[in-house]
């Protein structure tokens, strides 16, 4: 042990130059160190590899079974397989990411390692954002292990490139949102178990809660309406039926999804389906799963249809609007939903940054800082 090693001011020139706090490059460099630290810990944990393996087996198994059972149909399977893969990846990552991010900050607090980073030149925002990025990148691994299945679906033909180009960025962004919410909550809530559970509740709120809310609200907002009755006059000589609007009215209960459809906008699966531009087949009906879900959700924006004689052609055939017309006159909502997700994630991260800032004035009850 040599004396000069520890001498505090032995040689001013050899001391590290004060980092350039104002420079964006210096700021990013420190952020990179935090991300590297997060990733270095994760790639050494067995749990992460086990999860990657499980995800690959589950997704691969489902896709293979699907492929084998759909082979009888004489059509291009690529689009369907790709849609399945993307939805599965979305489901699986939303189930795994909270576990990877939900204890990022309070776990470090409990382990006593948070304070060791707080006493360096790293700022609270670098620390929290670095953890978000680290957890995001780690969770993107689950998307990466599913790439072979996506490549396989591309080789099957029928895959639309615009679907790929929209779907992948949205899945990547959604994984980032869940990572940010998990890390943010782990900064705001003291106990790792609780913050992880609350992160899961947010995932459930988006994916299931929006559906339940929509269903309940549709019933709650149903209205009673008076409708005019139409009847059919059958001409025995010509064999034609003519539509007649009568004076009689009847009362009916009408569900009003058009008043609450926006609740579904925050559903990640709806966001994905709504964002991908549909491709209409010969029957003006979308020919992939994304488009079909998108059409279903778009159709909910329509006010209840009042049946009239105008809906029928002289031959008595129904001539309502085609799916394509409905799709084109309704509004897209995916960016609103995505906006809500990003705003929530930003709020959680902002709260965590405030909670990690040191010197701390206020401490959560029972919390340790070192």
């Amino acid at each position, binding site marked *: *042990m*040599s*004396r*000069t*090693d*520890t*001498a*505090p*001011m*032995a040689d001013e020139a*050899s*001391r*590290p*130059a*004060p*980092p350039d*706090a104002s420079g964006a490059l*210096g700021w990013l460099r*420190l952020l990179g*160190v*935090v991300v*590297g*630290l997060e990733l*270095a*810990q994760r790639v*050494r*944990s067995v749990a992460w590899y086990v999860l990657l393996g499980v995800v690959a087996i589950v997704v691969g198994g489902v896709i293979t079974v699907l492929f084998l059972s759909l082979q009888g149909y004489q059509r291009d399977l690529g689009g369907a397989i790709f849609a399945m893969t993307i939805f599965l990846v979305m489901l699986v990552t939303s189930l795994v990411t909270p576990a990877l991010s939900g204890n990022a900050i309070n776990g*470090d607090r409990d*382990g*006593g*390692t*948070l*304070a*060791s*980073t*707080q*006493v*360096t*030149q*790293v700022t609270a925002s670098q620390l929290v954002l670095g953890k978000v990025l680290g957890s995001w990148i780690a969770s993107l691994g689950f998307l990466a292990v599913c790439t072979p299945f996506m490549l396989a679906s591309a080789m099957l033909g029928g895959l639309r490139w615009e679907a790929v180009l929209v779907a992948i960025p949205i899945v990547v962004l959604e994984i980032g949102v869940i990572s940010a919410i998990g890390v943010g909550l782990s900064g705001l809530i003291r106990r790792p178990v609780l913050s992880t559970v609350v992160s899961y509740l947010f995932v459930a709120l988006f994916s299931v809660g929006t559906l339940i809310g929509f269903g309940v609200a549709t019933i709650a907002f149903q209205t009673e309406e008076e409708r005019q009755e139409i009847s059919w006059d059958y001409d025995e000589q010509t064999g034609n039926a003519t539509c007649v609007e009568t004076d009689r009215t009847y009362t009916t209960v009408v569900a009003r999804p058009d008043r609450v459809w926006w609740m579904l906008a925050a559903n990640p699966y709806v966001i994905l389906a709504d964002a991908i531009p549909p491709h209409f087949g010969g029957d003006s009906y979308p020919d992939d799963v994304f488009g079909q879900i998108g059409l279903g959700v778009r159709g909910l924006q329509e006010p209840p249809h009042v049946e009239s004689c105008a809906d029928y052609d002289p031959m008595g055939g129904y001539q309502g609007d085609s799916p394509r017309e409905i799709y084109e006159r309704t509004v897209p909502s995916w960016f609103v939903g995505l906006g809500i997700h990003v705003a929530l994630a930003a709020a959680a991260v902002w709260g965590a940054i405030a909670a990690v800032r*040191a*010197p*701390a*004035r206020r*401490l959560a*009850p029972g919390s340790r*800082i*070192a």
Partner: protein
Amino acid sequence: MTSGDRAAEPGAPEPIPASAPPVFADPLDGAAGRPPLDADGIVVDEVARSFGSVQAVRQMTFHARPGRVTALIGPNGAGKTTLLLMLASLLAPDAGQIRIAGADPMRDPRAVRRAMGWMPDVLGTWRTLSPRQILTTVGRLHGMPTAAARARADELIVQARLEELARRPSRVLSRGQQQRLGLARALVHRPRVLLLDEPAAGLDPTSRLELRELLRGFAAAGGTVLISSHDLSELDEIAEDAVFVDRGEVVGGERLVLARQAAREWRIRALDPQALSYQLAHIGVAFDRVRIDGDVAHVALDREEDAADVLARLVRAGVPITHFAPAVGDIERTYLSLAGGRR
């Protein structure tokens, strides 16, 4: 490390001898008064901090000077850890001022962190990373370029004698090795102020000796060391100054004076134990001050002058003395009298 090693180092300052009695920080001492805020080292001025209704630190004022090792001593719950957290720029004081190497942790925490190395009592490490990775990462977190951080990490690994474990996950390290790694981590960015909480816990005798040498060298080169520990004999060896804290306050004034005036036990050993006990009575030491414990006599004496007097008389009486020394160190004696005064 031997003194020969040290002499071989050109330009290395001589360590301050440990035998010098510690100087006790006394806030009521008229000459010292309140430390100036622009002083170097660690300045703590009327600092208070409470957690809810618990007043962890009521009012602390002291100055840990550069070039010296200052001991922070007090019973459990005296507010030592809270104080160290405030000094480490992790916790904001409710009132009062703190300066670390001239920087205010509330206004400019980055400057404080640049100047300060902190070693907490319960050390958290990234368990899956190796000591080398940990030290490199900490260096980079302090803003060092990667190459410089690596070089510094290698240097500190040699110094902490962790070469064989440098590439193993740090969870395999023993308690003492963890402590050595923690100290290395506090030194990565060559700080000017060291805050240490129980640094010697779990260290083997060799490592303790090295720690002592290291801290003396650090102080001798102009650094400030504040060390909190319950190992009072260890502190007696290292520390030149001492700050006693009790129930959130720095103990000073009359209580400290009284504590230092309290009788102290001296341990006396002679080749002829019978002659020793006989002469002790014969030269006029009151019998209630003497406690014979096998071959060793313990004598409670109020002042150093009395001790010198007793020794001179025993030698004059022809007792073959082999050992004549205080049974406890200065810090330990003061601490125990203070603790005794509380009851």
